[in-house]
Protein backbone atom coordinates (compact mmCIF):
# COMPACT_ATOMS: atom_id res chain seq x y z
CA UNK A 1 0.00 0.00 0.00
CA UNK A 2 2.87 2.33 0.86
CA UNK A 3 4.38 1.66 -2.55
CA UNK A 4 1.06 2.39 -4.17
CA UNK A 5 0.96 5.75 -2.39
CA UNK A 6 4.42 6.63 -3.65
CA UNK A 7 3.36 5.87 -7.19
CA UNK A 8 0.20 7.82 -6.71
CA UNK A 9 1.97 10.95 -5.57
CA UNK A 10 4.87 10.65 -8.01
CA UNK A 11 2.76 10.88 -11.09
CA UNK A 12 1.73 7.27 -11.59
CA UNK A 13 -1.61 8.63 -12.65
CA UNK A 14 0.06 10.78 -15.27
CA UNK A 15 1.61 7.66 -16.76
CA UNK A 16 -1.71 5.86 -16.69
CA UNK A 17 -3.39 8.80 -18.41
CA UNK A 18 -0.64 8.85 -21.00
CA UNK A 19 -1.25 5.22 -21.89
CA UNK A 20 -4.98 5.68 -21.96
CA UNK A 21 -4.38 8.57 -24.36
CA UNK A 22 -2.26 6.29 -26.51
CA UNK A 23 -4.94 3.62 -26.59
CA UNK A 24 -7.39 6.30 -27.66
CA UNK A 25 -5.12 7.05 -30.62
CA UNK A 26 -4.67 3.40 -31.46
CA UNK A 27 -8.41 2.87 -31.68
CA UNK A 28 -8.47 5.17 -34.68
CA UNK A 29 -5.32 3.83 -36.19
CA UNK A 30 -6.20 0.14 -36.11
CA UNK A 31 -4.24 -2.76 -37.43
CA UNK A 32 -3.50 -2.75 -41.17
CA UNK A 33 -4.10 -6.51 -41.37
CA UNK A 34 -7.80 -6.06 -40.68
CA UNK A 35 -8.20 -4.57 -44.16
CA UNK A 36 -8.37 -6.93 -47.19
CA UNK A 37 -5.06 -7.45 -48.92
CA UNK A 38 -4.40 -4.92 -51.71
CA UNK A 39 -7.43 -2.85 -50.66
CA UNK A 40 -7.09 0.93 -50.66
CA UNK A 41 -7.43 1.00 -46.87
CA UNK A 42 -4.67 -1.58 -46.37
CA UNK A 43 -2.23 0.39 -48.54
CA UNK A 44 -3.29 3.70 -46.99
CA UNK A 45 -2.76 2.21 -43.53
CA UNK A 46 0.72 0.96 -44.40
CA UNK A 47 1.70 4.24 -46.04
CA UNK A 48 0.46 6.19 -43.03
CA UNK A 49 2.51 4.03 -40.69
CA UNK A 50 5.52 4.69 -42.88
CA UNK A 51 4.71 8.43 -42.78
CA UNK A 52 4.75 8.65 -38.98
CA UNK A 53 8.33 7.37 -38.93
CA UNK A 54 9.36 10.63 -40.70
CA UNK A 55 9.57 13.86 -38.70
CA UNK A 56 6.12 15.39 -38.21
CA UNK A 57 5.54 18.17 -40.73
CA UNK A 58 8.41 17.04 -42.97
CA UNK A 59 7.87 16.94 -46.71
CA UNK A 60 8.43 13.17 -46.72
CA UNK A 61 5.65 12.52 -44.21
CA UNK A 62 3.20 14.83 -46.02
CA UNK A 63 3.89 13.17 -49.39
CA UNK A 64 3.27 9.74 -47.85
CA UNK A 65 -0.02 10.89 -46.25
CA UNK A 66 -1.11 12.39 -49.58
CA UNK A 67 -0.41 9.07 -51.30
CA UNK A 68 -2.32 7.24 -48.55
CA UNK A 69 -5.35 9.51 -48.93
CA UNK A 70 -5.32 9.18 -52.72
CA UNK A 71 -5.19 5.37 -52.62
CA UNK A 72 -7.48 4.84 -49.62
CA UNK A 73 -9.73 7.91 -49.32
CA UNK A 74 -11.86 6.21 -46.66
CA UNK A 75 -8.96 5.61 -44.27
CA UNK A 76 -9.56 8.20 -41.54
CA UNK A 77 -6.28 7.99 -39.64
CA UNK A 78 -4.30 9.41 -42.58
CA UNK A 79 -6.40 12.62 -42.54
CA UNK A 80 -6.02 12.91 -38.79
CA UNK A 81 -2.25 12.41 -38.75
CA UNK A 82 -1.76 14.71 -41.71
CA UNK A 83 -3.76 17.44 -39.93
CA UNK A 84 -1.67 17.46 -36.74
CA UNK A 85 1.36 19.50 -37.96
CA UNK A 86 -0.98 22.03 -39.61
CA UNK A 87 -2.79 22.68 -36.33
CA UNK A 88 0.49 22.95 -34.45
CA UNK A 89 1.68 25.65 -36.87
CA UNK A 90 -1.46 27.75 -36.73
CA UNK A 91 -2.42 26.62 -40.25
CA UNK A 92 -5.88 26.05 -38.88
CA UNK A 93 -7.84 26.20 -42.14
CA UNK A 94 -5.95 23.30 -43.68
CA UNK A 95 -5.86 21.44 -40.35
CA UNK A 96 -9.62 21.64 -39.91
CA UNK A 97 -10.30 20.73 -43.54
CA UNK A 98 -8.39 17.47 -42.97
CA UNK A 99 -9.82 16.63 -39.55
CA UNK A 100 -13.35 17.34 -40.83
CA UNK A 101 -12.82 14.53 -43.31
CA UNK A 102 -11.60 12.15 -40.59
CA UNK A 103 -14.63 13.09 -38.45
CA UNK A 104 -16.97 12.48 -41.37
CA UNK A 105 -15.56 8.93 -41.62
CA UNK A 106 -15.14 8.13 -37.90
CA UNK A 107 -16.79 10.75 -35.67
CA UNK A 108 -16.36 8.75 -32.48
CA UNK A 109 -12.60 8.59 -32.94
CA UNK A 110 -11.83 12.12 -34.08
CA UNK A 111 -14.40 14.59 -32.72
CA UNK A 112 -12.28 15.01 -29.59
CA UNK A 113 -9.35 16.28 -31.62
CA UNK A 114 -11.25 19.10 -33.31
CA UNK A 115 -12.88 19.96 -29.96
CA UNK A 116 -9.42 20.15 -28.38
CA UNK A 117 -8.27 22.80 -30.87
CA UNK A 118 -11.52 24.72 -30.55
CA UNK A 119 -11.08 24.76 -26.78
CA UNK A 120 -7.51 26.06 -26.78
CA UNK A 121 -8.35 28.67 -29.43
CA UNK A 122 -11.24 29.83 -27.23
CA UNK A 123 -13.93 28.80 -29.71
CA UNK A 124 -15.96 27.45 -26.81
CA UNK A 125 -19.36 27.09 -28.46
CA UNK A 126 -17.92 24.82 -31.15
CA UNK A 127 -15.95 22.83 -28.57
CA UNK A 128 -19.23 22.22 -26.73
CA UNK A 129 -21.02 21.25 -29.96
CA UNK A 130 -18.37 18.62 -30.81
CA UNK A 131 -18.08 17.15 -27.32
CA UNK A 132 -21.84 17.01 -26.78
CA UNK A 133 -22.02 14.99 -29.98
CA UNK A 134 -19.11 12.80 -28.90
CA UNK A 135 -20.72 11.88 -25.58
CA UNK A 136 -24.41 12.10 -26.36
CA UNK A 137 -24.58 10.64 -29.88
CA UNK A 138 -21.48 8.43 -29.98
CA UNK A 139 -21.52 7.40 -26.29
CA UNK A 140 -17.79 7.93 -25.79
CA UNK A 141 -16.44 7.01 -22.37
CA UNK A 142 -12.84 7.85 -21.40
CA UNK A 143 -11.35 10.23 -23.93
CA UNK A 144 -8.32 12.37 -23.20
CA UNK A 145 -6.56 15.38 -24.68
CA UNK A 146 -3.94 14.32 -27.28
CA UNK A 147 -1.12 14.37 -24.70
CA UNK A 148 -3.29 12.69 -22.08
CA UNK A 149 -3.31 15.49 -19.48
CA UNK A 150 -7.07 15.94 -19.08
CA UNK A 151 -10.27 14.00 -19.64
CA UNK A 152 -12.23 15.70 -22.41
CA UNK A 153 -15.26 16.04 -20.13
CA UNK A 154 -13.22 18.51 -18.07
CA UNK A 155 -12.68 20.59 -21.22
CA UNK A 156 -16.39 20.38 -21.94
CA UNK A 157 -17.19 21.56 -18.41
CA UNK A 158 -14.71 24.45 -18.59
CA UNK A 159 -16.06 25.42 -22.01
CA UNK A 160 -19.60 25.52 -20.61
CA UNK A 161 -18.38 27.70 -17.75
CA UNK A 162 -16.74 30.08 -20.22
CA UNK A 163 -20.03 30.51 -22.05
CA UNK A 164 -21.79 31.30 -18.76
CA UNK A 165 -23.39 27.89 -18.22
CA UNK A 166 -21.38 27.09 -15.08
CA UNK A 167 -24.04 24.81 -13.57
CA UNK A 168 -23.98 22.68 -16.70
CA UNK A 169 -20.18 22.41 -16.41
CA UNK A 170 -20.49 21.31 -12.79
CA UNK A 171 -23.07 18.70 -13.82
CA UNK A 172 -20.66 17.25 -16.41
CA UNK A 173 -17.78 16.92 -13.94
CA UNK A 174 -20.03 15.34 -11.32
CA UNK A 175 -21.34 12.95 -13.95
CA UNK A 176 -17.75 12.09 -14.91
CA UNK A 177 -16.75 11.50 -11.27
CA UNK A 178 -19.80 9.25 -10.76
CA UNK A 179 -18.77 7.15 -13.75
CA UNK A 180 -15.52 6.13 -12.05
CA UNK A 181 -16.72 5.91 -8.47
CA UNK A 182 -16.29 2.13 -8.65
CA UNK A 183 -12.91 2.43 -10.40
CA UNK A 184 -10.83 4.98 -8.48
CA UNK A 185 -7.79 4.23 -10.65
CA UNK A 186 -9.47 6.19 -13.43
CA UNK A 187 -9.66 9.34 -11.36
CA UNK A 188 -7.84 12.22 -13.03
CA UNK A 189 -5.14 14.35 -11.47
CA UNK A 190 -7.02 17.66 -11.76
CA UNK A 191 -10.66 16.55 -11.43
CA UNK A 192 -11.22 17.97 -7.94
CA UNK A 193 -9.45 21.17 -8.90
CA UNK A 194 -11.69 21.74 -11.93
CA UNK A 195 -14.84 21.02 -9.96
CA UNK A 196 -13.70 23.29 -7.12
CA UNK A 197 -12.90 26.03 -9.59
CA UNK A 198 -16.37 25.85 -11.14
CA UNK A 199 -18.08 25.80 -7.73
CA UNK A 200 -16.08 28.93 -6.86
CA UNK A 201 -17.10 30.61 -10.12
CA UNK A 202 -20.71 29.69 -9.35
CA UNK A 203 -20.51 31.19 -5.87
CA UNK A 204 -20.91 27.80 -4.12
CA UNK A 205 -18.07 28.49 -1.71
CA UNK A 206 -18.45 25.62 0.77
CA UNK A 207 -18.53 23.07 -2.04
CA UNK A 208 -15.59 24.79 -3.72
CA UNK A 209 -13.57 24.63 -0.52
CA UNK A 210 -14.32 20.91 -0.07
CA UNK A 211 -13.24 20.04 -3.62
CA UNK A 212 -10.08 22.13 -3.50
CA UNK A 213 -9.11 20.55 -0.19
CA UNK A 214 -9.68 17.16 -1.84
CA UNK A 215 -7.34 18.27 -4.63
CA UNK A 216 -4.63 18.88 -2.01
CA UNK A 217 -4.84 15.21 -1.06
CA UNK A 218 -4.03 14.39 -4.72
CA UNK A 219 -1.24 16.97 -5.08
CA UNK A 220 0.28 19.41 -2.61
CA UNK A 221 2.54 20.85 -5.29
CA UNK A 222 -0.03 22.24 -7.73
CA UNK A 223 0.04 26.02 -7.24
CA UNK A 224 -3.39 26.89 -8.66
CA UNK A 225 -5.23 24.98 -5.90
CA UNK A 226 -3.78 27.31 -3.25
CA UNK A 227 -4.74 30.34 -5.30
CA UNK A 228 -8.38 29.28 -5.53
CA UNK A 229 -8.47 28.27 -1.86
CA UNK A 230 -7.25 31.79 -1.15
CA UNK A 231 -10.02 33.26 -3.29
CA UNK A 232 -12.63 31.09 -1.55
CA UNK A 233 -11.47 32.20 1.91
CA UNK A 234 -11.33 35.81 0.77
CA UNK A 235 -15.00 35.53 -0.17
CA UNK A 236 -15.83 33.70 3.07
CA UNK A 237 -14.41 36.63 5.02
CA UNK A 238 -11.27 34.89 6.29
CA UNK A 239 -8.56 37.30 5.06
CA UNK A 240 -5.76 35.79 7.16
CA UNK A 241 -6.42 32.28 5.83
CA UNK A 242 -6.68 33.69 2.31
CA UNK A 243 -3.30 35.42 2.58
CA UNK A 244 -1.70 32.23 3.92
CA UNK A 245 -3.01 30.32 0.89
CA UNK A 246 -1.89 33.03 -1.54
CA UNK A 247 1.61 32.86 -0.02
CA UNK A 248 1.62 29.08 -0.49
CA UNK A 249 0.52 29.65 -4.09
CA UNK A 250 3.41 32.07 -4.69
CA UNK A 251 5.87 29.55 -3.23
CA UNK A 252 4.48 26.79 -5.42
CA UNK A 253 4.60 29.04 -8.50
CA UNK A 254 8.27 29.68 -7.73
CA UNK A 255 8.88 25.93 -7.67
CA UNK A 256 9.51 25.58 -3.94
CA UNK A 257 9.11 21.97 -2.68
CA UNK A 258 8.37 20.76 -6.20
CA UNK A 259 5.63 23.33 -6.74
CA UNK A 260 4.39 23.91 -10.27
CA UNK A 261 1.56 25.20 -12.39
CA UNK A 262 0.17 24.08 -15.76
CA UNK A 263 -1.54 25.85 -18.64
CA UNK A 264 -4.17 23.24 -19.51
CA UNK A 265 -7.16 25.37 -18.58
CA UNK A 266 -7.11 28.10 -21.26
CA UNK A 267 -8.91 31.16 -19.85
CA UNK A 268 -8.91 29.55 -16.40
CA UNK A 269 -5.11 29.39 -16.29
CA UNK A 270 -3.55 31.05 -13.27
CA UNK A 271 -0.33 33.06 -13.42
CA UNK A 272 2.01 34.26 -10.71
CA UNK A 273 0.89 37.84 -11.44
CA UNK A 274 -2.71 36.87 -10.58
CA UNK A 275 -1.60 35.63 -7.16
CA UNK A 276 0.60 38.66 -6.53
CA UNK A 277 -2.30 40.93 -7.42
CA UNK A 278 -4.56 39.00 -5.02
CA UNK A 279 -1.96 39.41 -2.26
CA UNK A 280 -1.92 43.17 -2.78
CA UNK A 281 -5.58 42.84 -2.51
Amino acid at each position, binding site marked *: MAIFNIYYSSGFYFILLFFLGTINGLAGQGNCLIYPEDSGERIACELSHRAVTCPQG*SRESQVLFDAAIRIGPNYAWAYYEKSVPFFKRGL*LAEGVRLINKAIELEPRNYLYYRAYWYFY*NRSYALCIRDLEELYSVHNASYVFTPSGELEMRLLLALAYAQTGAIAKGIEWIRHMMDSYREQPALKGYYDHFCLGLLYYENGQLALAQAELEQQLTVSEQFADTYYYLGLVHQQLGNPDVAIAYFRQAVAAFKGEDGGYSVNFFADFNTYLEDVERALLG
Partner: protein
Amino acid sequence: MRNIIYVALLLLLLDCAADSSAISATAEWPSPKHDLSYIPFDVSTDDPAFTICDSTRIRSGRNRLRYHEGTNAFKEAVMAGFTTEPAFADFNGYVVVRFLVNCEGISGRYRAEALQLDFSPAKVDPALLAQALELIKSLNNWTKATDSAPETEYFKFVNLKIENGDIQHILL
Protein backbone atom coordinates in the same frame (compact mmCIF):
# COMPACT_ATOMS: atom_id res chain seq x y z
CA MET B 1 24.82 20.79 -75.48
CA ARG B 2 23.67 23.78 -73.45
CA ASN B 3 20.43 21.96 -72.63
CA ILE B 4 22.30 18.92 -71.38
CA ILE B 5 24.39 21.07 -69.06
CA TYR B 6 21.23 22.82 -67.81
CA VAL B 7 19.44 19.55 -67.05
CA ALA B 8 22.52 18.14 -65.37
CA LEU B 9 22.77 21.24 -63.19
CA LEU B 10 19.06 21.08 -62.35
CA LEU B 11 19.31 17.43 -61.38
CA LEU B 12 22.30 18.26 -59.24
CA LEU B 13 20.31 20.94 -57.41
CA LEU B 14 17.25 18.74 -56.95
CA ASP B 15 19.20 15.74 -55.72
CA CYS B 16 17.68 14.90 -52.33
CA ALA B 17 20.94 13.50 -51.02
CA ALA B 18 22.94 16.58 -52.01
CA ASP B 19 24.63 18.39 -49.17
CA SER B 20 23.06 21.84 -49.15
CA SER B 21 25.97 23.24 -47.16
CA ALA B 22 28.12 22.77 -50.26
CA ILE B 23 26.06 25.54 -51.87
CA SER B 24 26.72 29.13 -50.94
CA ALA B 25 25.31 29.70 -47.47
CA THR B 26 24.22 33.25 -48.23
CA ALA B 27 21.69 32.27 -50.89
CA GLU B 28 18.35 30.56 -50.36
CA TRP B 29 18.13 27.57 -52.65
CA PRO B 30 14.73 26.10 -53.33
CA SER B 31 14.39 22.63 -51.87
CA PRO B 32 11.59 20.23 -52.71
CA LYS B 33 12.06 18.79 -49.22
CA HIS B 34 11.07 21.86 -47.27
CA ASP B 35 9.13 21.42 -44.04
CA LEU B 36 5.52 22.58 -43.51
CA SER B 37 6.93 25.45 -41.47
CA TYR B 38 8.61 26.96 -44.51
CA ILE B 39 7.08 30.09 -46.04
CA PRO B 40 8.17 30.48 -49.68
CA PHE B 41 9.42 33.83 -50.96
CA ASP B 42 6.73 36.01 -52.52
CA VAL B 43 8.22 38.64 -54.79
CA SER B 44 5.26 40.98 -54.28
CA THR B 45 5.58 41.25 -50.49
CA ASP B 46 8.89 39.91 -49.23
CA ASP B 47 12.28 41.50 -48.71
CA PRO B 48 14.71 39.76 -51.09
CA ALA B 49 17.51 40.30 -48.58
CA PHE B 50 15.76 38.03 -46.06
CA THR B 51 16.90 34.47 -46.67
CA ILE B 52 16.40 31.11 -45.03
CA CYS B 53 19.54 29.02 -44.60
CA ASP B 54 17.89 25.59 -44.54
CA SER B 55 14.21 25.29 -45.42
CA THR B 56 14.15 21.58 -44.56
CA ARG B 57 14.91 22.06 -40.87
CA ILE B 58 12.78 24.94 -39.63
CA ARG B 59 11.68 24.38 -36.05
CA SER B 60 8.20 25.15 -34.83
CA GLY B 61 6.74 24.89 -31.34
CA ARG B 62 5.29 27.43 -29.05
CA ASN B 63 8.06 28.17 -26.59
CA ARG B 64 11.06 28.25 -28.84
CA LEU B 65 10.98 31.96 -29.51
CA ARG B 66 10.55 34.56 -26.81
CA TYR B 67 9.64 38.18 -27.31
CA HIS B 68 12.60 40.08 -25.86
CA GLU B 69 10.51 41.88 -23.24
CA GLY B 70 8.36 38.85 -22.44
CA THR B 71 4.96 37.55 -23.52
CA ASN B 72 2.95 40.00 -21.42
CA ALA B 73 4.81 42.98 -22.89
CA PHE B 74 4.14 41.59 -26.36
CA LYS B 75 0.43 41.24 -25.66
CA GLU B 76 0.23 44.73 -24.20
CA ALA B 77 1.99 46.16 -27.24
CA VAL B 78 -0.44 44.41 -29.59
CA MET B 79 -3.44 45.64 -27.61
CA ALA B 80 -2.06 49.19 -27.51
CA GLY B 81 -1.14 49.19 -31.19
CA PHE B 82 -4.42 47.86 -32.59
CA THR B 83 -7.21 50.24 -33.58
CA THR B 84 -10.54 48.83 -34.55
CA GLU B 85 -12.48 50.40 -37.41
CA PRO B 86 -16.23 50.45 -38.17
CA ALA B 87 -15.59 48.21 -41.19
CA PHE B 88 -14.27 45.45 -38.88
CA ALA B 89 -17.27 45.43 -36.54
CA ASP B 90 -19.07 42.50 -38.16
CA PHE B 91 -16.11 40.20 -37.90
CA ASN B 92 -15.95 37.41 -35.32
CA GLY B 93 -13.14 34.95 -35.87
CA TYR B 94 -9.36 34.87 -36.05
CA VAL B 95 -6.52 36.65 -37.74
CA VAL B 96 -3.46 34.42 -37.73
CA VAL B 97 -0.12 36.06 -38.50
CA ARG B 98 2.79 33.74 -39.19
CA PHE B 99 6.45 34.40 -39.93
CA LEU B 100 9.96 32.97 -39.86
CA VAL B 101 13.02 33.87 -37.81
CA ASN B 102 16.11 32.94 -39.81
CA CYS B 103 19.60 31.74 -38.96
CA GLU B 104 20.72 35.34 -38.33
CA GLY B 105 17.87 35.96 -35.90
CA ILE B 106 16.00 38.25 -38.31
CA SER B 107 12.25 37.86 -38.84
CA GLY B 108 10.55 37.94 -42.20
CA ARG B 109 8.03 36.39 -44.63
CA TYR B 110 5.05 37.66 -42.66
CA ARG B 111 1.65 36.30 -43.71
CA ALA B 112 -1.82 37.09 -42.36
CA GLU B 113 -4.93 34.98 -42.78
CA ALA B 114 -8.51 35.45 -41.58
CA LEU B 115 -10.53 32.51 -40.27
CA GLN B 116 -14.02 31.97 -39.00
CA LEU B 117 -14.61 30.54 -35.52
CA ASP B 118 -14.75 27.05 -37.03
CA PHE B 119 -11.31 27.72 -38.63
CA SER B 120 -12.64 27.83 -42.19
CA PRO B 121 -11.32 30.73 -44.33
CA ALA B 122 -13.09 34.04 -43.76
CA LYS B 123 -13.54 37.13 -45.87
CA VAL B 124 -12.62 40.28 -43.98
CA ASP B 125 -11.87 43.89 -44.71
CA PRO B 126 -8.33 43.87 -46.16
CA ALA B 127 -7.45 46.73 -43.82
CA LEU B 128 -7.86 44.39 -40.83
CA LEU B 129 -5.37 41.90 -42.25
CA ALA B 130 -2.98 44.68 -43.23
CA GLN B 131 -3.11 46.29 -39.80
CA ALA B 132 -2.59 42.98 -37.96
CA LEU B 133 0.31 42.09 -40.22
CA GLU B 134 2.07 45.44 -39.87
CA LEU B 135 1.56 45.46 -36.12
CA ILE B 136 3.06 42.00 -35.57
CA LYS B 137 5.82 42.85 -38.02
CA SER B 138 6.74 45.94 -36.02
CA LEU B 139 7.25 43.85 -32.85
CA ASN B 140 10.14 41.95 -34.30
CA ASN B 141 12.63 41.41 -31.51
CA TRP B 142 12.48 37.65 -30.97
CA THR B 143 15.01 35.76 -28.89
CA LYS B 144 15.75 32.13 -29.59
CA ALA B 145 15.23 29.85 -26.64
CA THR B 146 18.46 27.97 -27.26
CA ASP B 147 21.98 29.36 -27.02
CA SER B 148 23.58 26.10 -28.07
CA ALA B 149 22.40 26.30 -31.70
CA PRO B 150 21.86 30.02 -32.47
CA GLU B 151 21.67 29.33 -36.21
CA THR B 152 18.46 27.29 -35.79
CA GLU B 153 15.56 28.75 -37.76
CA TYR B 154 12.05 29.06 -36.40
CA PHE B 155 8.46 29.36 -37.47
CA LYS B 156 6.15 31.38 -35.29
CA PHE B 157 2.48 32.29 -35.36
CA VAL B 158 0.36 34.74 -33.42
CA ASN B 159 -3.37 34.09 -33.35
CA LEU B 160 -5.57 37.11 -32.72
CA LYS B 161 -9.10 36.17 -31.71
CA ILE B 162 -11.38 38.94 -32.89
CA GLU B 163 -14.77 39.70 -31.37
CA ASN B 164 -16.94 42.32 -33.08
CA GLY B 165 -13.89 43.67 -34.85
CA ASP B 166 -11.69 44.08 -31.78
CA ILE B 167 -8.98 41.85 -30.32
CA GLN B 168 -10.39 39.65 -27.57
CA HIS B 169 -7.46 37.25 -27.13
CA ILE B 170 -3.86 37.03 -28.22
CA LEU B 171 -2.76 33.43 -28.48
CA LEU B 172 0.89 32.58 -29.11
